[in-house]
């Protein structure tokens, strides 16, 4: 039995191919750090009666400090959101809006995604082969759009709650009641999804266990790409673009940083899920 690389993106034959740009990797790291900041400071408020709530807040430096961290992370979130929107505009200018929205490597849901979901369930039930994905599977599109929707919804409702006096100039006061529910429940959905489903789909499922660092290192082996994104791989190969995607092996420094951030995030995420379950059962 050959030794299996810890990082799923390191497994298999072939040269490394670029999958994510430095900007995408950096933004994802910002997503992780700010999201943990928001969750750790928001969760004790959402579950203020949980046995761990008081201790967590004290550990973060008290209610005021938690509030400040939450708002600081919110600013980071708005920051990466707008940087990303800007990068989409740049991308659209380079390759056209049509390609960005409806091309094979688009993030927009398309009829193929619906077919893929159906095909996936057929495969689950032993009635068909596994669907072949393009650059982004329907799961990755869901992750992405959920964050997109989440940042917009949680962000806007959060601003309402941050500046109620300002927004009350043109919104009725009960909008803050609505914002409270939307903000907390949408955030609960986001963390519940990310720390279970996203973790499973990307890192913990047997094919990839225990971790997939492609979002941190930006590169994966050719075999990984053929398995995970066969249609994209074939499309790029046919267009003769594989040569241009060949990447050097990841440096030791980047590898160690990626491992650290990756495993720390997995551990923290699973811990947070345990806290949520504890709070719900309490």
């Amino acid at each position, binding site marked *: 039995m050959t030794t299996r690389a810890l990082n799923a993106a390191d497994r298999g034959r072939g040269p490394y191919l670029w999958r994510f740009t430095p900007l995408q990797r950096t933004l994802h790291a910002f997503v992780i750090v700010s999201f943990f900041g928001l969750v750790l400071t928001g969760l004790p408020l959402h579950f203020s009666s949980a046995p761990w709530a008081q201790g967590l807040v004290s550990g973060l430096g008290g209610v005021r400090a938690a509030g400040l961290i939450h708002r600081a992370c919110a600013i980071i979130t708005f920051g990466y959101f707008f940087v990303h929107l800007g990068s989409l505009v740049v991308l659209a200018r380079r390759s056209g809006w049509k390609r960005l929205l409806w091309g094979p490597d688009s993030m927009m849901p398309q009829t193929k995604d619906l077919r893929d979901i159906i095909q996936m*369930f057929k495969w*689950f039930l032993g009635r068909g082969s596994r669907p072949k994905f393009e650059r982004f599977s329907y799961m990755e599109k869901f992750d992405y759009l959920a964050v997109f929707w989440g940042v917009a919804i949680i962000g806007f409702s959060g601003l309402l709650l941050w500046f109620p*006096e300002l927004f009350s100039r043109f919104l009725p006061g009960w909008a803050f*009641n609505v914002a*409270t529910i939307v903000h907390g429940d949408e955030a609960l959905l986001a963390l*519940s999804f990310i720390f279970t489903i996203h973790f499973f789909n990307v890192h913990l*499922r047997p094919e990839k266990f225990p971790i997939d660092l492609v979002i941190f290192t930006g590169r994966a082996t050719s075999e990984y790409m053929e398995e995970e994104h066969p249609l994209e791989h074939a499309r790029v190969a046919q267009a003769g673009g594989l040569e241009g995607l060949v990447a050097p092996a990841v440096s030791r420094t980047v590898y160690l940083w990626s491992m650290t951030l990756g495993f720390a995030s997995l551990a923290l995420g699973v811990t947070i899920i345990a806290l949520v379950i504890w709070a719900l059962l309490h």
Partner: protein
Amino acid sequence: MRGMVCLACGILAVWVLGAESTDAQAVPVVRCENCHGERDFFTGGDSTLFVPAEIFSTTAHSGLTCTACHRGFEAGFPHSTESKVVSCQTCHEQEGVDWASSIHAPNATLRGDAPMCVDCHGIHEVFRASDRQSPTYALNVASLCGRCHADPSVIGSYFATADKAQARTAVAQYFETVHGHALTVAGLTVSATCNDCHRAHKVLPADSAESSVNRRNIPQTCGACHEGIVEVYEASAHGAAQQNGSANGTGHSAPVCVDCHSAHGIVRADEPVWHLGVVEECGTCHEELYQTYLETYHGKVTRLGSTLAATCSDCHTPHNMRSADDPSSSVNSAHLVETCGSCHQAANANFVQYRPHADPRQGDRYPVLHWTWLFMTSLLIGVMVFFGIHTVLWVTRLTIDHVRAGKAGTPS
């Protein structure tokens, strides 16, 4: 109040002294001292009979002759050796009557361990309550009462049952909290000590209707020092209900001072422990409002230890709480901008449409909130269930494939 009593006693003492001094039968103190001032005279005998004039001369009774209290010895020596009862009540008439009706009196008579005059005031060294040497001086009262009320043997025999739990910790709690601190730490002799609330002589248990600490009398007792508050309280919804004797659905009668502030563990209203404590206190009766408050940002950050967010009394006022229908209520729609504005400076008519006790589960009262809540909850459950099934099926598929591959002898 205490000052008045002392002054009255003083006048009484002077009057008694004047009356006695004109009495031909009076025996001057100097003649008793011939024998009772000699320590050697009583060697081997009763040492309490040794009463040198010095210890007597600076007391509140310094102008009195011995026989003013020790009646029956007016003829001088030789005199009977039979002991005769000393009655303080002869002069201190009202105090005697008050003590006789107190809880101390029957226990002193029947069990002999409750205080009589001399237990608190001393025998010959009786000082005015305004004299720092006196055990009844404001700074010394709690220790004086604590001699019995903090003594485990007394607590164990009088206050052992669950309903008297408060009495077991009262003295210790008093020293740790605002009234005790004001006296012992800040030296504020105007601060309340035991006798200010329980009275000095007519000490009665709270369940006695005549007691100064009976629920019906508490507003007046506290109001004796906390001027102005009692009037506001009496005009409030709580005060009105208390006067009607009405109880709410939970069987609690309307709160009086000690229900929110406690009796002995009183803390300052600007201390963090008060901030959350008062919410729980209000919640013992206002259960639904308590729950809905804790669902809001105000309630949640307060529960986590914030002292900035509004608690009950910030919106409903500490003592002047009234129904929202009452035009003079702080939470009447006419006053909401002002009330919310005390924290949210820019509060306007829109702002005060916020519902600080909204319950999204109540669809009839809060339809928009209810549907928002239902939508968000359904979204959460829907997404998690769909992807939960997705995940379980995925793991199942891979497990089946793995087992089949193993059986077929294919290396995995």
